[in-house]
Every structure is written in C-alpha cells, then in structure tokens.
C-alpha cells in the first residue's frame, strides 16, 4: 500500500509538466521545489540541532547573488555558479556557526537576524557590485549541450532533481553519527558532551550544511527568475521558511517537504480570495494558532493518528 502510493507519487512528479498545462501552476510548483530545499535546510538547524536561524534569507540571498554575479560578470556556466553559490553561502554559515559556539537560543537568533540585516544593507548600498536596489537583470538560464532550461517544463526537472538530492542528503545526514549528534545536542548538551559529542564541530557542521543548501536554493532561484534584487533578503522569506518547518513538523524529514508544498500552494490559492495584506495577517495568526493547537506540526500529528 505504501509502496504503491510512493510509486504513484513519483510517477506523478516525473510526468507533471505533461499534464499540468498552465505555466502559472508550473511556476507555483517550481517555487514549491525551491522552498522545499530552503525548508529542508532550515530544518537541519531548527529541527535537529534546535537552534533557530532567522538569517536564512541571508544565506539564500548570498547564494542568489553569488550565482548571478559569476554568471553575469565572468560568464561562468550555471553548473559552476551553483556549486560556487553553495560554497560561498556555506562559508557564511561557517562564520555564523562559529558564533553559535558562544551563544545559543535567543542570542543565536539575534546574531543570525543581525547577520541577514547587515548583508541586506550591503546589497542595497554596494552599488558597484550589486547595482543596489535596481538589482541584477538578465541572469542567464542554465544550458547543457543540446538542452536549454529556459522553459518552465525543463526547469521543473532541474528543481525536482535538486530538491530530491537535498532530501537524500538530509536523509543520509540525519541517520548518520553526525545527525544523532545534532539531536543529542538539542536534547541535552552537557549529556551529549559527556558521551563525546563535540558541540563546536557538530554545530558548525550543521550550520555549514544548512547554509550551503540555502545557497543552492538561492542559485536555483536566481537562474529561474533571471533577476536578483535586495528583495531576496526580505525577512518574510525567512518567516515563510520558519512557518513551513514548524507547520510541517520540525525534526522530521518529511515535515519540511509537506510544509513547503502546502505553504507555497496555499497563498497562491488564497490570492484570488484575499488581498496580500490579509494573507500576511492570516499568516501571522496561523503561526500563533499552530503553536497553540498543533505544536508538533502536521507530519508527527498525522503519524500519531495512524498508530
């Protein structure tokens, strides 16, 4: 039964551009894929190590700008720009991870939010590099010999592959020794240390991995929309990621995926019904309601019903 459902789901995902005719719906699906990577990445920190990063839009934006700048100024192909974006964002994650050694909990949140704030101000003010608030238009679409990812249909498969790969990476990491060390630190840091978990290296590893994944999402976003502006650093992106992870179920593998798909589709479905501000009001109230009524998230709650 489960296998059948999984096979059907995989078949539906693989053939999606064939039966989903409307380009608008395909766009929503592609954005859901990019947000899946972001939610998976945030979940590594928030869900598994228990450290909330409110600077994730910063890593996302660093990835987007790195990729766009390399492609525009040095004409690097997408296939080199994407790993460079992951690397640059990962380096930023390394810096933030080193800070996590000194501060935890609320203070870690403040450091990450300040980091994203500084990066965002740099992107607005460093005109020579980033073209300021005007942004960078004309980011090229990825190309392969005989294959262009200029169409939404082709880009869908690229994002699907990246999201699938991110899921597998998270799956591997979470079940590894490192992943168990994440959870051990979340549950009881002194106890984890007493059995040989090195908090320094473990948290830095989590931050680097998480930031690099967000950088990949940023690069995919830049080459998809073909335009990068300081808006990639908007705090509402970070909030959206947090809602996706918390609603889907933090500390589960499937939770962020469910959250990302749900919360990309939901605002689009509501777009007809209510104005954007009402949507944001609803978002805020939803976050409050989730904490009160569904504190563990959708996936763990559904899983406990089945048992």
């Amino acid at each position: 039964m489960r296998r059948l459902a999984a096979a059907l789901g995989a078949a539906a995902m693989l053939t999606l551009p064939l039966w989903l005719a409307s380009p608008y719906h395909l766009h929503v699906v592609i954005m859901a894929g990019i947000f899946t990577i972001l939610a998976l990445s945030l979940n590594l920190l928030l869900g598994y190590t228990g450290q909330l990063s409110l600077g994730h839009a910063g890593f996302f934006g660093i990835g987007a700008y790195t990729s766009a700048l390399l492609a525009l100024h040095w004409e690097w192909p997408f296939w080199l720009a994407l790993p460079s974006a992951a690397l640059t964002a990962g380096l930023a994650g390394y810096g933030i991870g080193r800070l996590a050694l000194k501060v935890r909990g609320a203070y870690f949140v403040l450091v990450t939010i300040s980091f994203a704030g500084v990066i965002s101000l740099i992107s607005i003010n460093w005109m020579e590099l980033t073209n300021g608030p005007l942004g960078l238009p004309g980011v090229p679409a990825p190309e392969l010999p005989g294959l262009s990812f200029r169409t939404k249909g082709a880009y869908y498969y690229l994002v699907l592959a990246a999201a699938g790969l991110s899921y597998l990476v998270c799956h591997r990491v979470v079940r590894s020794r490192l992943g168990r060390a994440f959870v051990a630190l979340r549950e009881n840091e002194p106890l984890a240390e007493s059995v040989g978990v090195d908090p320094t290296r473990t948290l830095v590893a989590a931050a680097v991995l998480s930031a690099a994944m967000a950088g990949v999402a940023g690069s995919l976003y830049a080459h998809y929309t073909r335009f990068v502006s300081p808006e990639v650093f908007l705090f509402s992106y970070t909030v959206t990621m947090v809602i996706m992870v918390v609603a889907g179920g933090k500390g589960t593998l499937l939770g962020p995926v469910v959250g990302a798909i749900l919360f990309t589709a939901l605002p689009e479905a509501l777009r007809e019904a209510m104005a954007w501000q009402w949507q944001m009001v609803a978002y805020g109230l939803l976050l409050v309601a989730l904490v009160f009524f569904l504190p563990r998230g959708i996936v763990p709650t559904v899983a406990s019903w089945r048992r």
Partner: protein
Amino acid sequence: MDAFLQHLVNGLVLGGTYALLGIGLTLIFGLMNLVNFAHGEFYTLGAYATFAALALGGTNFFLAVAAAIVVGAAAGALCERVLLRPLRDESIDTTMLVMIGRWIALQNGELLVWGGVAKSIPHPFPTAPLVLGPVGIAPLRLFVVLTALGLIGLSWLLIQKTRLGTAMRATFQDRETAALMGVRIGRIHTATFAFGSALAAAAGALLGPIFLAYPSMGDLASLKAFSVVILGGLGNLAGATLGGVILGIAEELGAGYVSSGYRDAVGFVIIILVLLLRPSGLFARSERIG
C-alpha cells in the same frame, strides 16, 4: 568640531528614545525570558495612536502622547493575558514564534487600517531651531529628549522605590523564591509586559512626529531595542539607558562620517560584536547568559 557636536546632540535625542525602547524590552526579556519580536509593534502602535488621537479625536498634542502611552499599556496587558499567560511554561522558542506571528499579523493589520503611505504627525512646536552656541536643536527634539529622560526617571523610581518594582526585581532574581514569598508571578508578568509596552509606545509617540508613522516602522525599532538590551545586559535598567544613548550617538556618527546608507547597520554590528566579545553586555558585572 561643530558638526561633531551637532551629531552628538542629534544622537542624544535618538538615544533617549532608544533607551525607552531598550528599557521596556530589557525588563520583558530579563524578567519573562521572552524574546519579544513584537516589541516594535508597540512602538508603531504608539505613533499611530498619537496620530489617531490628533486627527480623529481632535485632542491636543500632549494629551495625544499620554493617550498613546495608555493605549500601549492596555494593549500590552491584553497581549500578555491572551497570548503569553497560557504559554508561560513553554520553551523560549515557542513564545518567540508566537511573538513573531503576532508581529506579522499586527503589522499587516496596520497596513490595512492606515494604508502604506506614511502619515505625518502634526505637533505644536515652532520649526525654527533653538541655537545654543555651536549647535542647534529643534524645540520638538528638545521636548522629546526631556520627556524621554523624564520617563526613564519614572521607570527607575517604579523599579527601585515601589512595591511593584521590588516584586519585579525579586521575580527577576529568582522566580520560585519570589512566588514563595507571596509575589503573584502572573500579575508581575502582566504588569511588566504592560509597562514595557507602554515605554515602547511612548518612544513611538515621541519619534513619530520627528520622522513619520508607517506600518513597518517597528521592524527596525525592535532590532534597535535588541541591540540596546544586548549592549546594556539583560534586565539592566542603567545599562539599557546608557546603551540607548551609545547606540543613538553611534548611529549619528556612523551616518555623518561613514555613510548614511549604513546607519541602520550600526545596531546589527553592535549585536554581533557584543555577543562575540562580551556576551553579558558592556556593563554587567557577572555572566548572565542563557
């Protein structure tokens, strides 16, 4: 040199209101262990309440500022009773998420009510600056800094000299022991949150006429309040006052001598540097990080 003195005076005006924001937040953060990302929303509320009292209520400016402070306190008390009281034993992350949700909902609610166009708040002061030797200060700004200082003084009296203040300090030091001594912790939390929110609303009511009132004005105010709290140390009233003044002056100097585009980066850099180098704040005697 004259420019420097002028920056210093402008920084002091900003710093006084930052201190108000910081004192409110440091009490809430320290006493309730709550990362209150909605703090800036009370600042916004203060500015809009002043505007509403003037434009719709037709009162005079000083009554409007007082009304804004009362509205801030009432909204704070309500928020604490409805959203925070049921979650008092939850983890710090849980309450923080609730405050983030409240922040987003309120800010966009304000956008719906007042629209995205910034509102200018009228005030009765003449616009010609008072010139004192090398520096000039607009009468409105003088009023702002004096009122801020007065409110800081009142806060200090409340914390140090009243029964409520004693109970608040006891709760900050050790919640359980304070409860055993007959302090009603629930009421202290409500009072602290209402008081902190009233100070934030006061800051909004005072800065609103200098700048403008717009729905997202609270975002930066929250972050600045956090930088002040981190500079001054958790729950440290004198630290928050000094921290506010330092931040105000540092911003003015940064905007004047480095680049006005990076004015708002000063607060962020302070947060990162202080947490890196001296996480208990500049003025704390002992480590108080958790």
